[in-house]
């Protein structure tokens, strides 16, 4: 089985978000970049398929040269080789078209992407990719087993979960649950040394559509001070929620 894990290079979850150039760009100043958490769960599941079922795992990222430390981290975790499509990820549709080209050239059976990146939150790359390639697709995937060409996936739905049966080739929109938080791997020294020698192929982008464009960003409005209620007077909170906030 040949697996492609699509990774996005995103600000660490603890990052404070600021905008620059007249609020038209995300301010990367002082921001630590990491593998998108939803993708990292998928990458770790791919490692399981590699170790238990002999799968080959490649990672791909659509981004400029600045994303290479994040790609190297994925190699240090255990991916066999990497591809970087040398283009700024303009929007989800654009990225999906670039990935589709990589998949066509690489003959992959299983493509694992995160259900969304935690920066631009488009949540569309895996679904568009699957549809462009006429592959099966399961989103918000929290469990995946492969047996030959048959796949059994668990999908998180609002208020529960759904068991799904489908077949390869398959695209997954993954998230926490594919593996547990405690299963995530921190690269060790040997992994980091080996990652330096693994192939990281840079390919040029294909012409692609970009149907959406972020024009401007803004931060949430500053909040007023909290209204404190004395712990000995809990009834006042009930009254405030009813009469002032009008939420109960």
């Amino acid at each position, binding site marked *: 089985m040949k697996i492609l894990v699509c990774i996005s290079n995103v600000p660490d979850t603890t990052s404070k978000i600021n905008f620059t150039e007249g609020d038209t760009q995300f301010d990367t100043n002082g921001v630590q970049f990491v593998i998108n958490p939803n993708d990292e769960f998928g990458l770790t599941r791919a490692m399981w398929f590699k170790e238990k079922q002999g799968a080959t795992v490649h990672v791909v990222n659509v981004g400029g040269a600045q994303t290479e430390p994040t790609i190297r981290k994925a190699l240090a975790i255990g991916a066999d080789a990497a591809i970087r499509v040398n283009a700024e990820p303009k929007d989800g549709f654009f990225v999906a078209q670039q990935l589709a080209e990589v998949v066509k050239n690489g003959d992959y059976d299983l493509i694992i992407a995160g259900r969304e990146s935690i920066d631009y939150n488009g949540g569309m790359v895996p679904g568009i990719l699957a549809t462009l390639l006429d592959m099966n697709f399961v989103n*918000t995937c929290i469990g995946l087993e492969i047996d030959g060409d048959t796949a059994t996936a668990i999908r998180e739905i*609002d208020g529960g979960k759904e068991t799904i049966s489908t077949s390869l080739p398959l695209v997954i929109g993954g998230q926490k649950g594919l593996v547990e938080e405690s299963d995530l791997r921190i690269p060790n020294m040997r992994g980091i040394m080996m990652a330096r020698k693994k192939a990281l192929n840079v390919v040029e982008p294909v012409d692609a559509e970009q149907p959406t464009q972020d024009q401007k960003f803004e931060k949430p409005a500053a909040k007023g001070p909290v209204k404190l209620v004395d712990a000995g007077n809990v009834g006042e*909170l009930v009254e*405030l*929620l*009813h009469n002032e*906030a009008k939420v109960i």
Partner: protein
Amino acid sequence: MSVLVYTESLKGKFKKNAFEVASYAHKVAQDLGTTVTAVSFNAEDDASLGTYGVSKVLKVSDDSLKTFNAKAYADVLAQAAKAEDTKIIILSSSADSKFLAPILAAKLTAGYVPNVVAAPESTSPFVVKRTAFSNKGFAMTEISSDTKIIGVSSNAFGLVENSVSAAVEDFGPSLGDDAFSVKSVEVDRVVGKATIADADIVVSGGRGLKGPENWGMVEELADVLGAATACSKPVSDMGWRPHSEHVGQTGKPVASNLYIAIGISGAIQHLAGINASKVKVVINNDPEAPFFKAADYGIVGDAFEVVPELIEKLKEFKAQNA
């Protein structure tokens, strides 16, 4: 040229988000001088969509579509869009809509923008406001493609009544076997309990509750309020509560009217996930907890004393206001 909406239903009953997307679509249709057409799947009360401004319903009655199937539903919506010559399709931000929308976007080469929180800023160019950076910011996003798909955030635009009479027409899509290549085997849905996705009130517990054995009072508080229960990331990582309850940047987003955080300090990742909630209450014994800076109301105190007291007061309140 009507605006098309995907109206979600469960066991024949429309979900609240069906009426929210209809309300939103009515506003867009007004701006564009057109009308709203809904697509419903095995729903019982199609005419009820008229209350929220839907003037035509394409009613799909098909046993093979009783359970949601993203690929097949996307096929149906693509066919409906063609039949209606639609350029704008509106759906919700539910798990089902977010599964289906990218498939539809690829089929129609449409720009898709999810998590939209307000009516379009303008319709020419077409610009919508959406959340970005996991609720740490907003983006004004232009959709320049001919066909546009908008995913409306839950509890953002809200319900707006615009009563019209909805003409219900049967719609028979043509679906090949290929549409069902991803099959639902079993759906395991909690019944009779509010879910984080659609609850008006969410009650959430953190590490301050010290252990899973102390969740009884969180559940009781949720019961009294008709609320969904949730938890912080450390709580789900330690296995005190299921992952499906984890709210925050890497968990589920919350956009309820009221969010009550008990024993949650308020890490930036957690606050991002619950930012879209309208009113936030924090109960924590540490007055320095960052959550107090993000909350509307707060009680500095021991949760094990405050919460049972709050449950009592709410019961009294409910008895008086019954």
